[in-house]
């Protein structure tokens, strides 16, 4: 997805209205005073509660929420699940594959059997079910952590740019421009080995698999923060002229107070939405990088890496491609629908779906 270009309109803000993520502006504004004043003692229904009620009424969102929770639980309890299945993620069932024809699994549908619920990985003879639940851990962890990281950085930069204005805004906005102008995927491909090498303790050519995870998270966040920053900046620009901000300023509040006490609480809705949509986007990026061979390094299992491997075997063993492919689709779709539902719930006016 692309973002709104910067200097579109004279005020610099009206342009952001087309940004799907920015559509909550109005709600955030209208509920602003409420949120700050009802921080502790809630009388009546808080906006969060109202949003939750609305979300609950949306069937699609609830299904997505349930799916998301199932995925998260499966990731957390991966060891328990594989114990039930009887095969770990890196134990090879040599008897299930045919070494004469390229270690393809015996049997139909990728070797699905009572022993191997989702079949066997061609090439290695690993249990696909175990690979998938452990791979889910990787995908979710990378998606969540990088979304968290990019949101935090984006919010801080966006707040600073929007609130201080002047040269700070100019500088930060130009940095955002540069980041957004980068051909991201191409750049991450080039960047990954560089950063990996800089931090790697084994300088003998091997690739440290856990360091690679950190590098991936870092790289994905390094390009994702600018979207959030631009969004938050736009919101701050419109909020800082509001009466309640003026009021605190007149009452002698410092900028720290205004930024974090007055402005930030009014931004939680767009930030939450940005975060919710960043998670599936980052999972997609991570999977794409792993597909291109610059992502997660074995023995860490990962869905993108699984699909990359499956692409070599899919003409003979399409099951091996379908299962992780469909699961990845379901995961990302559920997260997207959930993010969508959250937005609708927070912004009833938009009434999207």
């Amino acid at each position, binding site marked *: *997805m*692309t*973002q*709104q*270009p910067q*200097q*579109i*309109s*004279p005020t610099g803000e*009206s342009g952001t209205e*087309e940004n*799907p993520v920015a*559509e909550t502006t109005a709600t955030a504004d209208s509920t602003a005073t409420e949120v700050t004043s009802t921080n502790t003692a809630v009388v009546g229904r808080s906006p969060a509660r109202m949003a939750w009620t609305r979300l609950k009424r949306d069937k*699609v969102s609830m299904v997505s929420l349930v799916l998301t929770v199932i995925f998260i639980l499966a990731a957390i309890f991966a060891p328990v699940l594989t114990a039930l299945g009887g095969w770990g993620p890196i134990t090879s069932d040599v008897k299930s594959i045919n070494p004469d024809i390229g270690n393809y699994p015996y049997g139909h549908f990728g070797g699905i059997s009572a022993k191997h619920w989702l079949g066997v990985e061609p090439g290695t003879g690993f249990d696909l079910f175990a690979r998938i639940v452990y791979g889910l851990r990787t995908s979710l962890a990378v998606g969540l952590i990088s979304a968290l990281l990019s949101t935090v950085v984006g919010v801080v930069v966006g707040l600073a740019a929007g609130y201080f204005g002047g040269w700070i805004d100019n500088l930060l906005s*130009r940095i955002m*421009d*540069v980041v957004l*102008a*980068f*051909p*991201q*995927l*191409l*750049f991450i*491909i*080039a*960047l990954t*080995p*560089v950063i*990996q*090498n*800089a931090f790697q303790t084994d300088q003998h050519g091997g690739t440290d698999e856990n360091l690679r995870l950190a590098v991936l998270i870092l790289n994905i966040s390094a390009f994702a923060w600018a979207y959030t920053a631009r969004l938050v900046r736009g919101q701050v620009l419109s909020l800082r002229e509001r009466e309640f901000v003026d009021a605190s300023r007149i009452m002698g509040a410092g900028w720290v107070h205004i930024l974090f006490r007055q402005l930030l609480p009014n931004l939680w809705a767009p930030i939450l939405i940005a975060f919710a949509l960043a998670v*599936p986007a980052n999972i*997609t990026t991570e*999977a*794409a990088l792993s*597909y*291109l061979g*610059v992502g997660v390094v074995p023995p860490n299992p990962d869905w993108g890496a699984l*699909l*990359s491997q*499956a*692409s070599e075997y*899919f*003409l003979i063993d*399409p099951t091996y*491609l379908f299962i992780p*492919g469909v699961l*990845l*689709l379901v995961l*990302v*779709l559920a997260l*997207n*629908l959930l993010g*969508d539902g959250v937005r609708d719930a927070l912004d009833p006016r*938009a009434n*999207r*779906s």
Partner: protein
Amino acid sequence: MFRYVIRRLLISAVILLVISFITFVIFFALPSNPALLACGKTCSVQRLAEIKHSLGLDQSFWTQYSEFLKGLFAGRKFGDQSVLITCAAPCLGISFKTDEPVLTTLFNRFPADLSLALGSAVIFLIVGVGLGVIAAVRKGKLIDKVAVSGALFGVSLQSYFVGLLLMWAFVDKWQILAAPGYTPITQDPNAWFQGLILPWVTLVILYLAMYTRLSRSSMLETMGEDFVRTARAKGLSRRKVIFKHALRAGITPIVTIFGMDLGSLIGGSAVITESVFGINGIGKLAVDSVTDSDLPVIMGTTLFAATVIVLANVVVDIVYGVIDPRVRLA
């Protein structure tokens, strides 16, 4: 207007300069040693040093960077000995692997990206906006629901999964289509079209969704605005209101996003589609050059893609100013 354009172009130039610098820094830090790769198997220490010199890799970072910048404007000459390769301005350097000027390689690859981008963009723009408008007009009806949910479905798909699935079904299983790939249109228009069907479909599936969604919401918004209501109140037909008034206003945000998408597609951002279908575009070139440690090519592809994206940004802003009367460029 003129001053605005000049200013935007200047800013773009600065952004590109910064990007070139950052890219250069990264190459410098790349773990692999291109001289060693070029040297081959039995590489004596002395020959390695000579090759390093021949490739210009023995110079300091700043010398190399300023040589690169100079080459952009004045051209460069390569080769240590009497046989030189001349690389005319704007020189992006010489590929370590093929000894070909990077710009030549980029121009060779560019038609593939252009075909891929334009073909798919035309489809997803027209179909996407069409579906979006229908969905907006029939809000709440079945078609609306299908369009909206289909949209998110498309966004959640992975291009390689779609691509491989399509290949599996159409090429291998049913054998309806020939194996995909890129043939220049000048050489064989029929093969060009046939080879690009699946890549186009893949990109359309991925992008269509977003356009449907955006044009739907944009249409809904404009249809609620005063000027549309006024037009309706004036007694204009519903059809006329939708197509003459609402669509024109509603399409402006789509134009901006379309411009950006087209820019990044042309710049080689469809890396995965290219590698799934074996299309030798700039995206694939970039991925290959990273594996080969072909620094000048990495630099060239990155800069090229960034340039296209930055320029698309400028064009989009200008177009936006032209079609949306509310925006004044200053």
